[in-house]
Every structure is written in structure tokens, then in C-alpha cells.
């Protein structure tokens, strides 16, 4: 019991690691990944494999999350729309929130929990069992072979998943709107496409999803690589990675919202 408790304390200490130093470490990792890619060290086969795995892992939760998100958005938009008696605006009301904020945010949080955490656990296990050193002993660059492929796979997956989740959430929203408010899905779609929403709103969300992907991929790789201390250490790393990812995602959401407004 006392072991576990001191472990939890260590985790909190590493999670609340001076933010600037953490940002510095993430930047260094990003630079190393960039260098590996630029110098052609990226292992293409590992990239395809990582992409496939992150895709398969993400699909079920992205589908579930997107459908629920659409439903939630309609239920929340409903009273506002009803207050003005403007059913034609339901698509707009649920749409802008989904495309610009909630779609990218929730997809990122879920993928951070599923793929990011999994990535940390895998890398952490490899570090703890010296598999990473074994790579170096074979004169294979771990960044090009392991880190860069995973990084790129996570960023790509999140971008595609957000695009997919946006569409699915809006379909879900249309049918929840029909069930709850009696708004014909056709009216909903008209509300979406009547000109109040444009490609700009979709792009806004997609730009965010790329930034979120970078944040999630970097922090999950960083904490995986920084794992020490056996099985409990892997748990602590995963914990720290998801917390830092979540905080980073919201923080970046704030800045990106204004930067590209």
C-alpha cells in the first residue's frame, strides 16, 4: 500500500514537472523526429504498421464518441433553437460546435486515451525490458525506427479520425434531432449547408486536430521513453502521459482558436 502511494506521489511530481522544462524536452524530441525524417531514417514499414494499428484501435471509440457527440450537441442546442422557434437553425447550432470545437476535442481526448496511452505503455515496456537499448546495440536508430513512425501515425490518424467523426457526429445529430424534436433530417442538413457554416469551420477543426495530434504523440512518446521502475513505472508513465496530453490539448485549443480565427 505505501509503495503504491509513494508511486502515486512520484507520478504527480513527474506530471507537474516544471512545464517549461517539459516543453523543452518535447521540443527536443520533435527536433529529433524531424531530423530522422529529413535524413530518410524513417522506417516506412513500421510507419505503415503503426498507422494500421492506430487506425484499427481508434475506429470503435471514434465511432461511438462521434455518435454520442452528435446526440449531445443536438440535445444541448435544442432549447436555444426552440426558444427562437427556428428549427431550420438546428443544423447550424449543432454543426458549428461540433466542427469547430467538440468534434476535434473529444476525438483527441479519446484517441489520447486509447492510442496515446497505448503507445506510452508499449514504449515504456520496451524501455523497461531494455528492448530500446537492444535496438541501439544493433546500431539501429530508435527515433527513426520506433518514434518517428508512431508520431506520424498518431498525427495522421487523429486528422483522419476527426474528419470522419465530424461527418458521423452530424449524421447522428440529424437523427437525434428527428427523434427528439421532430426536425426532419433534410431540414437539419439544410441548416448545415445554408451558408452559415462553411469550409472554414471544417478547416478550423482540422487544423486543431493536427496540433492536438502533435501534442498527444509527443507527450505519449516522451513519457514512454522516460519510463523507469518496472511495471509500476509503466503505469505511472501512462498516467502522466494522458494527463499532460489532456492539458496540452485544451491549452492548444485555446491558442489555436485565436491564432486561426
Amino acid at each position: 500500500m505505501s509503495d503504491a502511494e509513494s508511486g502515486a506521489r512520484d507520478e504527480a511530481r513527474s506530471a507537474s514537472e516544471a512545464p517549461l522544462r517539459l516543453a523543452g524536452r518535447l521540443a527536443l524530441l520533435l527536433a529529433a523526429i524531424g531530423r530522422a525524417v529529413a535524413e530518410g531514417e524513417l522506417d516506412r514499414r513500421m510507419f505503415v504498421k503503426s498507422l494500421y494499428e492506430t487506425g484499427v484501435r481508434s475506429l470503435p471509440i471514434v465511432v461511438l464518441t462521434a455518435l454520442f457527440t452528435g446526440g449531445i450537441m443536438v440535445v444541448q442546442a435544442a432549447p436555444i433553437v426552440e426558444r427562437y422557434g427556428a428549427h431550420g437553425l438546428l443544423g447550424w447550432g449543432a454543426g458549428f460546435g461540433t466542427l469547430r470545437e467538440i468534434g476535434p476535442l473529444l476525438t483527441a481526448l479519446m484517441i489520447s486515451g486509447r492510442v496515446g496511452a497505448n503507445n506510452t505503455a508499449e514504449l515504456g515496456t520496451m524501455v523497461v525490458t531494455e528492448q530500446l537499448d537492444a535496438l541501439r546495440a544493433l546500431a539501429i536508430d530508435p527515433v527513426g525506427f520506433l518514434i518517428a513512425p508512431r508520431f506520424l501515425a498518431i498525427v495522421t490518424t487523429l486528422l483522419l479520425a476527426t474528419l470522419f467523426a465530424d461527418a458521423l457526429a452530424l449524421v447522428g445529430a440529424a437523427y437525434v434531432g428527428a427523434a427528439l424534436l421532430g426536425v426532419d433530417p433534410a431540414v437539419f442538413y439544410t441548416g448545415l449547408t445554408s451558408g452559415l457554416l462553411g469550409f472554414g469551420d471544417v478547416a478550423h477543426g482540422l487544423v486543431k486536430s493536427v496540433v492536438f495530434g502533435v501534442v498527444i504523440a509527443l507527450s505519449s512518446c516522451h513519457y514512454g521513453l522516460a519510463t523507469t521502475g518496472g511495471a509500476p513505472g509503466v503505469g505511472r508513465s501512462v498516467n502522466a502521459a494522458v494527463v499532460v496530453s489532456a492539458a496540452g490539448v485544451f491549452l492548444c485549443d485555446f491558442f489555436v482558436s485565436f491564432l486561426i480565427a
Partner: protein
Amino acid sequence: MISFREVSKRFGTRTVLDRVTFDVPRGAISFVIGASGAGKSVLIKHVTGFVRPDAGEIWLDDLEVSRLGERELASVRKRCALVFQHATLFDSQSCLENVALPLEKHGRGRTGAEIRARARALLARVHMEPFADRYPSELGEGMKKRVAIARALALDPEYVLFDEPTTGLDPVNARRVDRLIQTLSREGGVTSLVVSHDLTSIFGIADRIVMLYKGRVRLIGTPDDFRQSDDPVVRQFVRGEAEGPMDA
């Protein structure tokens, strides 16, 4: 030849290596022995640059390893393989893929088929060819250790460092690994540096032995020198006695 010159290493306040100096001659099987925690593993990890000395130099032929950066170390690691104490196979890959990986990454073989054939030949050298398509989680420790040795041999290294190769193996598997190390040196001309505290291995296959005690070199010599030594510390270790001058 691998040379350690006045190598010192501390972790925190603990001195692990204290001005260690010795040479590892080519073609022979050299052992570094000593009690657990005597700094043996740390010592050989200096050779491939996994650990940096606080003071002193490590030379691999005419290269000063201790001065090289991570990127330059790649060339050292191709010539000097390290077999870790735990097998450290990549668990997401089959035995064949594990052995093929360094071949692929370093362009040893033009086609996939050629690489796979080479990997199979390497597995055959350690008598693991029938298990080529198994995953590490399906194998016992002794088998994994042999696959790890095959993987380490993939790049035709001149030197192979073994970190406690027989620890955690049953006696039969341990002797098989010993025989493998012996064959590599006698028939393949490989220079082996083995870290061990397994007395059967030490007196079975060693040409030369370096004993570390409290971070310093205690004795260098042949197995016979060790058997006949009247140093009480050496005597206690080689006889495996509970009572003696060594610290608990």
C-alpha cells in the same frame, strides 16, 4: 583488442569502477568475474557506449570509444555486438524477424528472400531454425537467449560482449550457451568478452579471467592462476564459500 585504461565510474556517491585497467586480446574468450554488484555489467556497457566513463578511456582497436557521439557509435556497435542479460527480443516480431531486422536495416542482402535465408542460417547456427516463426512470448529463457545471440551475430561482429549469458538458465541450457560461445571463438574467430559469476562457465570455457572486487581489478590470469591463487578473496569466490573476507 579492447582496452580499458584507468576507467572510473560513479553512480551518485557509489563508486562502481575505480581506475580499472586491462586488455582483452583478440580471438580469445575473456571473462570478467566478480560478485553481483561488483560493476561487471556496467563495465562492458562502456564498450558500446551505453555507459560513459567519468574518467579514463576505452579503446576498440584504434578508436577511442569513450569520445564518440551517439551517431559515431553506430559503427562501433556494428563491429562489437552486445548480448544483454535478458534476451531483449522485440516481442512484436517473430524470431526470424528479430534476426532479420539488423540485416535489413544495414542492407545486408539485396532481396527479402536473401535476407530471410541469411536469418535462417543464423538461427541454424544457434539450433533455433525450427522455431523461426515463433514469437518470443512462446519460448523459454534458454531459447530466447540463443535467438538473441543469433541476432547479435547478424552483422558479423568481430567482438561479442555477453552480459551474464547463463544467468537464469537451467544447467543444460547454460552449457549449451557456453558451447555456443566456445564455437564462435574457436571456429568463427570472434573475440568474446563474457561477464559472469557462473563458476562452471568460468572454468569451462575461459581463456583469460579478470576479477573485479569493490570496483577494482583484483586479479588477471588464466583459470589455473585463479585455482592456485592464495588471495583469500579470490579463493573464496572460486570455491563459492559462504564464509570469508568478501563483504556480504
